[in-house]
């Protein structure tokens, strides 16, 4: 077992894990944060996307041990403590950017990263930026709309 200390959604914690534990297993099974989902086994679908030190990573694609000493944010940690939704979460609701909800946590985490660190100045740029996340329900149109609206809201509240 490996001792692992990291910050999760703002709180520091320490857990023992098998060295082979994937970060997504650590999140879902050890921490019981089941909002992060697993939709594939080839790092293609993006349902497991979380933030590590503020950058989007696919948590199926790294070991939990690699997160030691870092700051992890999952979908459960995105809204404010009082329950106020992050502007991107609110935009997904406003724009009907989700249907079954399974890809949604990963999609929202990717979208926040897209706005913070990449180009989201056009529909084309947003579509390109969402390339790492599958949605099978929405046809992406309302997700693209939500990301644009969420981006505007994030900029105006920043």
């Amino acid at each position, binding site marked *: 077992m490996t001792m692992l200390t990291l910050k999760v959604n703002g709180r520091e914690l320490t857990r023992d894990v098998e060295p082979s534990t994937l970060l997504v297993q650590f999140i*879902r099974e050890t921490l019981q944060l089941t*909002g992060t989902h697993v939709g594939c086994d080839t790092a293609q679908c993006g349902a497991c996307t979380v933030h590590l030190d503020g950058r989007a990573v696919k948590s199926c694609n790294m070991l939990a041990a690699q997160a030691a000493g870092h700051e992890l944010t999952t979908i459960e940690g995105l809204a404010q403590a009082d329950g106020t*939704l992050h502007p991107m979460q609110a935009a997904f*609701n406003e724009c*009907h950017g*989700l249907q079954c*909800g*399974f890809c949604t*946590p990963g999609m929202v985490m990717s979208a926040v990263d897209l706005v913070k660190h990449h180009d989201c100045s056009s529909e084309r740029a947003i579509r390109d930026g969402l390339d790492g996340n599958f949605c099978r329900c929405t046809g*992406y149109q309302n997700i693209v709309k939500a990301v644009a609206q969420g981006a505007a809201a994030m900029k105006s509240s920043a």
Partner: protein
Amino acid sequence: MNAPTETRGFIGKSVKRREDARFLTGTGRYTDDITLPGQTYGFFLRSPYAHAALKKVDTKAAEAAPGVLSVFTGEHFKAVGGLPCGWLINSIDGTPMKEPKHPILADGKVRYVGDRVALVVAETLQQAKDAALLIDVDYDELPAVVDVAEALNAKGQVHAESADNRCYQWQIGDAAGVEEALKTAAHVTTLSFRNNRLIPNAIEPRAANAAYDRAGDSYTLYVANQNPHVERLLMCAFVLGIPEHKMRVVAPDVGGGFGSKIFLYGEETALVWASKQLNRPIKWTAERSESFLSDAHGRDHATTAQLALDKDGTFLALKVDTTANLGAYLSTFSSCVPTILYATLLAGQYRTPKISCTVNAMFTNTAPVDAYRGAGRPEATYVVERMVETAARELKMDPGEIRRKNFIHEFPYATPVGLTYDIGDYDSTLDKAEKLADVKGFEARRQASEAKGLKRGIGYSAYIEACGIAPSSVAGALGARAGLFEAGEVRVHPTGKVTIFTGSHSHGQGHETTFAQVVADRLGIALEDVEIEHGDTGKILFGMGTYGSRSLAVGGTAIVKALDKVVAKGKKIAAHLLEAADTDIEFEGGQFKVAGTDKAIPFAQVALTAYVPHNFPHDKLEPGLNENAFYDPSNFTYPAGTYICEVEVDPATGVTHIDRFTACDDFGNVVNPMIVEGQVHGGLAQGIGQALLEHGVYDKETGQLLTGSYMDYAMPRADDLPHFTVETVKGTPCTHNPLGVKGCGEAGAIGSPPALINAICHAIGVKDMPMPASPFAVWQAIKSNR
């Protein structure tokens, strides 16, 4: 008591979804999120061969491995029946379809790559997976039947019951009349095509968690499923012999279905049975590679069709000959997909007087094929709309004009293939689509593309579908072994708040919002005062579930019928309270009123009186306000519309760029336009995915699935799709349900593939184009046409 702030006019409003809050904050609860006390984990060992005899399955070493509780094989399930098929199809000669056993775990033979060989149960998933590697299986490989078009004469034989691999040969329509018309017609258009095999790929993989309670001799099954009552009925009554009252099936939040989660699968059935043997809960969640191998696939038809026309483009007859792939076993509704749900739609929106269709349904050594978004209706629409457009091009007619000329204008209309359309207005959606797509400006855009060395084309598709599945009497006469009604219950609480229990199941459709809009509107109460419960046989009285765009048309109507009963009883209570005759009470805007007076009491007061019956006329009325209703529709509903696609093809690379895609639909009345539009978007993505990207491919010799991961199966991504123009016309309300709704879930997937393929054919001037129209396929077509 405070008056509700907004209690009227919810129907027709784009109310934001109530279910979003939990999905957006990671607090949705999907099957894999549920871990039970004493949880164990199951792993299925699957066949690496498409067809083989199992000479030996030795599990001793696996059973001795760390953490392993037990290993189950086909031997354990010999006494248990196979999985049932819910629809009997008879062949032309009157003989019933061949129904070979669909075993829960392989029974002496494996018949597709991914067929279940053994179930390992261990304390952890890793232990189960490690132990599975220790199972010693001796496979004796047999010739595999892979391509459906060659199955009839293949070397291999999938089942002993069928020497030619045929499950049935079915026919509908006036075959002799069609032949006669083909002989004498001024023009006959002939085309052969494949409707490509699709793999559903809901982003939540299939999952189940089965628990047995020894004290009560009862079971709870959590399962990613679209119809928990059907799952329970099939598993209890037709397979495991468990009394239904001893089985609770919960389908919690479900991450997309698209048909693939309708069916009763062997995995959850094995888990339930094994949970009793071990007296421990067992969880299994498919890995994506298992989803590819073992979820029921969709489509996979080989078809030849002929359309006879007179010289001015009037349709005279349509002949269709289809070979349909059923895969290795009959999945739950597989047999009705290429027959009842397919050939009955071959009239499309047209007055074609004579139609005949023959279907040969084949067993192959591939994953079972069953309903996938649209189920038979996309295949039918593809036939009709490819034929119509090709005929128009051959006759040098405008694709809009040939359709207008042949549209049905008088309703009800009995088609020559068994359906009666209650209502429609096909001109309105075609006209609107042409305007929105700016068809008039096409020629100028074509010239502009040409100047850049690009080829521009336009393609139409005027689809119809039969939804609101289904009138049980019709379905029964056609071979259904189940009723297809829906159930709903309205529980009014003493405070006037309402919980609705519906047999429909939401796995993305937004019922918690749409159904609440209907209820709040009808009862004149606030939306917040309505809660929608679904997906639990322990709570819901009964249900047939969600598929075939049926939820609002059938499930919603069951709720409306129950609401009517609540109002009827409320009137009696109000009459008592207001000292008036029952017949003088009217219900409007959440108030029970004495007609012609200003005497009124609100709904909530009537509810309270029902539960606090201190001064109740017990000789006339029972306390309480709780009603349920079952609704069996009298006909299908018939959503219809026109889709127009415009593409630009680069002849140097074969790459197709969708310049614009316009969808104009008539869904009858619309409860929530935002949700309806979202459903169309999703359907379009799957239809465009089918036409441009997706293809489930097996190696023709070995039967190995070549597209078994997201590295190989081209799922549409955000940057593969255009911005859609979607409009729902005011339309023609359905004539036989009280909401006037028709259903919208499948339209996009049904209508879009032919529009796109027609556009590509037009752009590059070819008659034939396979799906998916990959750059290579398009490039080849351009070259070969030179």
